[in-house]
């Protein structure tokens, strides 16, 4: 804020002004021996000092070019020039001039008359604080016309053009300036108080409404304030906490029952090292002697680069901890149940397999080629055999499907050419039976579980053999392409019966069959197992088919690790 300022265009850009509460004339100051009363007209051709940048400077150079101006940097320089006869006169505002004549002890000057230019002084304030300007204006409005005149007469006087000496001006002008200053201070105090009150209210509201406990500490580690949440969580009232050593009140013992020395306390450490300390889990003690787990942050309050206290915010993490325990329990029980399910499937399939095998095998012994049996008996016997075979396939499927997750053999580099050769050996009989052909050339190596990758190709190839076209020898082509993103794709393409492409996803579902032919019944899990294996290798398996044209399976290996 500025006590007395004239609004100029430049100042108006960043300041707000009250209405002028006083108007001061710019006067013509000359040496004592110049007796005449002067006005601007008489100054023509004379050398006149003005202060650079002041309102009068602009005014004179614009309206009175006939006057020779000696522009000085400040009033004291100008006054001295008049006093020493270096210029003929100076034009400056009466109050300012009076003050400096007194200050510099210049005794040979007098006011010779008004210049016609008038300083209109108001109170100026920052324009981003418009309320202040309004308040100031109110203050100024309180001074009525009569009082203004009185102030002016009393403190400045109107002895211009008479032989008034500057000494007479000094006291009144200084007093006037002091009065402005006092008014300004009172007004700005009132504004500040209001602001402080509002801020305090806002802060109080925040402290009261947050869910986190907040308390303040002084350098001795004693509680200076606490918010309602802190009081509620700890069970202490503000009075009970204030002035108490916070650590020995609520932080005295660790969760393992050992005493917690002051020196180790991260909250207090903030008071010493001036750094913020965050602790994810410790316990605080309530008034009733119980404890609860907390997460807290101790932030030092720094003044002049030194900690003067700390603010601690904390949160009760019991619920989070309980949730974590619950989650862990759920995850354990899920894991257990998965394990049980898997071992149940494994045991069941194992035990089921034996009686099924016996059914099938004794069927063979009954019909051992000696034709004692009727044709009908033979026919039904072969159906029993077929059903037993199917049952065994299902059981095998369930067994390997359930055991997929259990195999945690480490991944290694697998040469797919070797894998296919191995699989060809396993499936030798099946391939020979249908005169099948498996074509592959220069397949890459991949990184994976060897047994699972073998099973993957075994299932895919036997699937293609099974769904061959009637009377057409199956040809299975295995090719690959390396994609730019480092992915590797393998294609297993056959010339079998194919399938409608709308079933492209369905064929991977467990126990899905697209063909009703009973002789083709398998475990119903072959392709499901393939899909599961590919997913376990962070890859994917998709199918493409066309009725009568064959099927193509695309295996995408996402992570291709070379030379490991």
């Amino acid at each position, binding site marked *: 804020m500025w006590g007395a300022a004239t609004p100029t265009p430049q100042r108006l850009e960043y300041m707000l002004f009250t209405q002028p509460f006083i108007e001061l004339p710019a006067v013509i100051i000359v040496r004592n021996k110049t007796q005449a009363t002067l006005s601007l007209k008489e100054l023509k051709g004379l050398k006149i000092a003005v202060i650079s940048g002041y309102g009068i400077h602009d005014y004179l150079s614009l309206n009175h070019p006939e006057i020779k101006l000696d522009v000085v940097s400040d009033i004291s320089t100008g006054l001295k020039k008049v006093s020493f006869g270096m210029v003929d006169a100076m034009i400056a505002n009466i109050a300012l001039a009076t003050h400096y004549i007194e200050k510099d002890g210049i005794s040979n000057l007098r006011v010779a008359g008004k210049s016609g230019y008038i300083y209109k002084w108001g109170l100026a304030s920052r324009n981003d604080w418009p309320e202040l300007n309004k308040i100031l204006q109110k203050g100024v409005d309180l001074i009525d016309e009569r009082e203004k005149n009185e102030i002016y007469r009393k403190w400045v006087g109107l002895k211009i053009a008479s032989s008034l000496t500057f000494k007479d001006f000094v006291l009144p002008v200084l007093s006037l300036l002091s009065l402005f200053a006092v008014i300004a201070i009172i007004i700005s105090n009132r504004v500040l108080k209001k602001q402080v009150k509002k801020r305090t209210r806002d802060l109080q509201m925040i402290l009261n409404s947050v869910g986190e406990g907040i308390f303040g500490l002084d350098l001795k580690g004693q509680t200076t304030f606490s918010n309602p949440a802190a009081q509620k969580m700890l069970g202490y009232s503000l009075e009970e906490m204030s002035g108490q050593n916070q650590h020995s009140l609520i932080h005295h013992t660790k969760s393992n029952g050992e005493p917690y020395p002051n020196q180790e306390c991260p909250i207090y450490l903030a008071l010493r090292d001036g750094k913020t300390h965050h602790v994810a889990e410790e316990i605080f003690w309530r008034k009733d002697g119980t404890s609860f787990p907390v997460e807290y942050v101790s932030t030092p309050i720094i003044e002049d680069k030194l900690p003067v206290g700390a603010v601690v915010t904390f949160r009760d993490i019991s619920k989070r901890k309980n949730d974590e325990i619950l989650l862990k329990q759920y995850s354990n029980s899920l894991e257990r149940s998965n394990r049980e399910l898997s071992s149940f499937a494994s045991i069941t399939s*194992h035990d089921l*397999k034996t009686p099924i*095998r016996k059914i*099938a*095998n*004794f069927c*063979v*012994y009954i019909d051992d080629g000696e034709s004692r049996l009727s044709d009908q008996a033979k026919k039904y016997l072969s159906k029993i055999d077929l059903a037993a*075979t199917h049952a065994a396939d299902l059981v095998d499927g369930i*067994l390997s499907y359930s055991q997929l997750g259990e195999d945690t053999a480490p991944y290694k580099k697998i040469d797919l050419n070797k894998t296919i050769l191995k699989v060809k050996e396993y499936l030798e009989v099946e391939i020979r039976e249908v005169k099948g052909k498996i074509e592959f050339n220069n397949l890459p190596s991949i990184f994976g579980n060897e047994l699972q990758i073998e099973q993957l190709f075994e299932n895919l190839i036997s699937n293609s053999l099974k769904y061959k076209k009637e009377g057409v020898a199956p040809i299975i082509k295995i090719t690959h392409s390396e994609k730019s993103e480092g992915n590797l794709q393998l294609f297993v393409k056959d010339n079998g019966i194919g399938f409608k492409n709308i079933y492209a996803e369905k064929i991977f579902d467990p126990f899905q069959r697209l063909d009703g032919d009973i002789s083709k019944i398998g475990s119903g899990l072959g392709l499901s197992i393939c899909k599961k294996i590919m997913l376990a290798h962070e890859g994917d398996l998709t199918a493409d088919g066309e009725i009568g044209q064959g099927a193509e399976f695309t295996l995408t290996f996402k992570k291709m690790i070379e030379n490991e």
Partner: protein
Amino acid sequence: MNRNGLNLVIVDDDQHDYEFLSRMLEGFDLPLKTIWLKDGEEVIDYLEKMASFRDQNSYKNVFIMDINLPKVNGLELIKIIKNHCNAKESFVIMLSGSMSKSDLETAEKNGSDYFLKKPFGKREIDEFSNSLFSKLSSLIEVS
């Protein structure tokens, strides 16, 4: 006493499987003396008895043993058998319903000489029968 014959010890707790196997062996027409033991304890008893008659007994012992046995697991039994007899005196054929690769590896590591999957259906029965027949024949010739 047939000096070139085999002591064939079938170790299986499942009577049906034993019957199935012994009928197949009957058809082989080989000089075999078949003994049926139901579990590991019986095998250990047998081994102890056999040791005391070792000098008179020139028969070669061939164990046809199921992997899943009560009391002592078949895979463990291989070691016990191999510890009792020297390699020339005993030959162990493991039978398993599922050709689990880890079982196969363990069996081989423990000293099993041969591994056969329990057959399922006509084709596998024929294959099994052929393999077993030729293996036993070769053992008889060697001994």
